Each structure stands twice: as structure tokens, then as C-alpha cells.
């Protein structure tokens, strides 16, 4: 036995958990897949995002806020120990609207949620002129925006690199190119990699993204998740043209503008399509007309990990105790919570957050 925990999946979710477990003095073995696996951690949009999350589930909104609030400290600690600048910016973010009616509708929903959260939901409604003051490059078709002050963004690739570096620095073992084929339990969990190697640990965390669809049932989870494709466009590096990110468009610290937020139910297909790429490009140009002249240098598709209600799943197996399923579609936003608070739950400590509302039981047919 070489570790207390085997973490199946070395993406943002698995590495955030590993990082937090190492801080609690646990020994960690991370088994990461190979290039044939889908990798949301390399394809995502890099938002640390609160607004719009958990409109029908305040517990999810709170959990998201708890993570967003822990991000600055988490990022500083990670940056200091690895020397990487994560380029975290939490100065608010926008949700843009092209017509007043849908803006008003959303504001009403936000007011309800704000009440349910005891008032902790700081947002402002900016009409076109007020928005133009904040973002001089905004286009004439934008009717307004909701500016939520708890939103922000980060460089997600540097986050991934920092986590991997720091997990190794603290003595964690990270094995790459080791897709897991089978997991079973006798006294200990026996984890069989595709190359035939068997790893044994007393506890297992399944944080394999879409890999949990196949591995979950072996541990007694139903793992009711599905892929949802998002396509992304990247422009050439440009002088600063926007001050805050939004769910559909952001300018990263290196100057490139990232355009995204398509949602397609197409199964395990992460290709790009001209139709969707043009649709998201047209929307971005409507928001920031100067982008019409920008050159695109890259595009890709990536698969989100979606549960039936869109919220995370945190579940210990009832058939094989000691096995945990952790899956979510907002791995960046929740990275700080997964690093700071989830390890106590895995350890069964009294300090553990109450995550009952995120169990798999909520999907059981009653």
C-alpha cells in the first residue's frame, strides 16, 4: 500500500482534492488517463462564476459562493508555492442581454434567490449607458447587463499546471497515461490499470469526469452524468478591450479573447462545427463589434460533465464504503471548495461540510 487515497482522474477536480488531502497529511496516488480520454480541464472557459448558479437550488448557490470566496487565498497559496501566476481576477462579471424583457425576467429570478440567500447576492443591473461607461467597447445592440460582484476568471491551464506541480511537491504521486479499467474491493480497493498494473489503497475518489460513466457502476454508483459539448474560439492577442469577463466572452491575461458558451447534446463527440462556431462568433461581435476585425487563431470543442439537474454529485458508495464519487461541471469555480472543504468530508471529519443535498439519492425514483 503506497497511499491512503487513490484519486482516479488527474484533472482540476482530482488534483484540487489531492492538494487538499495532502494539506491534511494524507498520502495520495493520482491516476490520470491518456490522450484518448476527454479532458474538460484542458478545454474549459476559466470562469470563477457565481451568477445564475443554483437559481432553483440555493444550497448550490451557497456552495459556489463559498468556493468563490475561498479562491483568492487558494490562488495566492498555490501561486506562492509553485511560482505560477494564476491570473485570478475577481472584480465582477457580466451577463449580457439584447432585450429588456429577458433582462427583467432574470433580475426577478435573482431577487428571489437573493432573498433565499439572506441578501448575500451582490449584483447591479446596468442599462446600456451605464454598461458603456464600464465597457466603452460594448456594441449598440446590447440592452444591458447584470454585473455580479462575486464573479471572476482565472487562467485554467496555469491552475492545472500549478496543482499538478504542487501535488508532486508535497509528495503526492501523479501517474499520467494510466487509464483505469477495473476497480473492486476486498480488504482494500484494487485498481487495475489498462496496462495490467494493480494499485491498492484503503480509499478511492472517482473524479474521472466522463470516465465515471463507465467506472462508477463498478463501485455501486449510478453516476447519471452525460456529456454536453461546448465550442470555444480564441482570437489573436489584442490590446485590452474589456475590463470584466462574461459567460460568453472574456479576454485572458495574455491578451487573447476567448469566445464560447455553446451547449450541444451530441454525445461523446468533441469536434468543432462551422455552424456553432459562426453562431458564437456572431454573438461575440454583437457584444463587442471591434471583434469583427480580430483574427481567430484556434478553436476546439470540449465536453462538459452534466448531471440531470446540473448540480455536482458528492456521494460515498453504499455498497463499497470508502469509495467516493465527485463530479461537477464547474471544476474551476469549485476548485477552491474542493481543495479546502471536500477533504474533511472524505476523511469523515466533524468539520466536513454538509453535502447531503448533493448525493446521488436525489435522482432515485421515489
Amino acid at each position, binding site marked *: 500500500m503506497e497511499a491512503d487515497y487513490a484519486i482516479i482522474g488527474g484533472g482540476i477536480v482530482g488534483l484540487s482534492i489531492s492538494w487538499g488531502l495532502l494539506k491534511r497529511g494524507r498520502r495520495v496516488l493520482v491516476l490520470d488517463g491518456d490522450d484518448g480520454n476527454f479532458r474538460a480541464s484542458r478545454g474549459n472557459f476559466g470562469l470563477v462564476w457565481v451568477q445564475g448558479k443554483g437559481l432553483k437550488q440555493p444550497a448550490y448557490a451557497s456552495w459556489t459562493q463559498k468556493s468563490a470566496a475561498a479562491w483568492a487565498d487558494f490562488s495566492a497559496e498555490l501561486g506562492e508555492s509553485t511560482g505560477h501566476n494564476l491570473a485570478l481576477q475577481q472584480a465582477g462579471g457580466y451577463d449580457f442581454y439584447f432585450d429588456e424583457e429577458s433582462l427583467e425576467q432574470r433580475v426577478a429570478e435573482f431577487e428571489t434567490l437573493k432573498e433565499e440567500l439572506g441578501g448575500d447576492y451582490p449584483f447591479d443591473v446596468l442599462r446600456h449607458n451605464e454598461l458603456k461607461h464600464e465597457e466603452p467597447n460594448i456594441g449598440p445592440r446590447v440592452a444591458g447587463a447584470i454585473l455580479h460582484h462575486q464573479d471572476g476568471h482565472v487562467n485554467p491551464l496555469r491552475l492545472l499546471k500549478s496543482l499538478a506541480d504542487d501535488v508532486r511537491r508535497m509528495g503526492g504521486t501523479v501517474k499520467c497515461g494510466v487509464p483505469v479499467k477495473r476497480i473492486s474491493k476486498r480488504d482494500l480497493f484494487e485498481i487495475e490499470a489498462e496496462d495490467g498494473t494493480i494499485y491498492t489503497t484503503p480509499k478511492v475518489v472517482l473524479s474521472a469526469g466522463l470516465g465515471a460513466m463507465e467506472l462508477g457502476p463498478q463501485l455501486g454508483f449510478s453516476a447519471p452524468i452525460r456529456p454536453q459539448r461546448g465550442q470555444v474560439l480564441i482570437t*489573436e*492577442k*489584442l*490590446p*485590452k478591450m474589456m475590463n470584466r469577463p462574461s459567460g460568453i466572452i472574456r479576454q485572458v*491575461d*495574455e*491578451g487573447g479573447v476567448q469566445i464560447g458558451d455553446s451547449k450541444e447534446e451530441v454525445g461523446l463527440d468533441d469536434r468543432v462545427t462551422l455552424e456553432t462556431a459562426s453562431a458564437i462568433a456572431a454573438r461575440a461581435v454583437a457584444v463587442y463589434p471591434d471583434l469583427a*476585425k*480580430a*483574427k481567430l*487563431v484556434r478553436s476546439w470543442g470540449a465536453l462538459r460533465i452534466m448531471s440531470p439537474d446540473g448540480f455536482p454529485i458528492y456521494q460515498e458508495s453504499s455498497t463499497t464504503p470508502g469509495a467516493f464519487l465527485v463530479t461537477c461541471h464547474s471544476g474551476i469555480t469549485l476548485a477552491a471548495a474542493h481543495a479546502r472543504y471536500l477533504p474533511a468530508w472524505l476523511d469523515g471529519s466533524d468539520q466536513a461540510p454538509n453535502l447531503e443535498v448533493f448525493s446521488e439519492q436525489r435522482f432515485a425514483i421515489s
Partner: protein
Amino acid sequence: MNNASPFHNISPSDDLVTVTFDGIEYVLPNGANLAASLLEAGLRSFRNTPVSGALRGPFCMMGACYDCLVEIDGETRQACMTAVTSGLKIERAHRDKGLEND
């Protein structure tokens, strides 16, 4: 540093046209590769990066690296993917526009 251009046209042409780069006139072979022609004319850096303002010039010469960007008609274009035409007005891309200079 030896400032002599190390680039020489191996198939000189008599069909020459005038273009401007940042207002300075250059006489270049009509239809030739713009990046190659400007290098031959002695230019080393074509632009500043938009974040730190660092100098950049052609690197890959095959449309992949996006280092040879110049501004033509208000758009950034790859010089190595552009042909020399008469009267072309070329500007240095992102001069004085570094994000850090805000």
C-alpha cells in the same frame, strides 16, 4: 551587432512597386511575399506584442506562428501570408498598445 540584412532576394525582378511601412517608403518586388521583402529591405521587427510591448518579427514564414503580424487597413494580418501590391499602407501592429501601458 551587425545590422546588415542577412536576407537577399535570389530571384530579383524588375517589376517594383512602392509601399509604406509606418509612413516610410519601401520599393519592393510586385507580388512577392511581404514578410520576406520587408526582411530583405532591412526590417527586423514588425510589431509590438499587445501585452508587454516586446518586439516581434517573422519566425515561421509559413502562416503558423502569428509573429509577423502587421496592420493593413485597420486589421492585423500575417505579413508572411500577404503579397506585395502597389501602394500598400502597412502600420506597425499594436505599437504603444501594451496592456501594461494602460
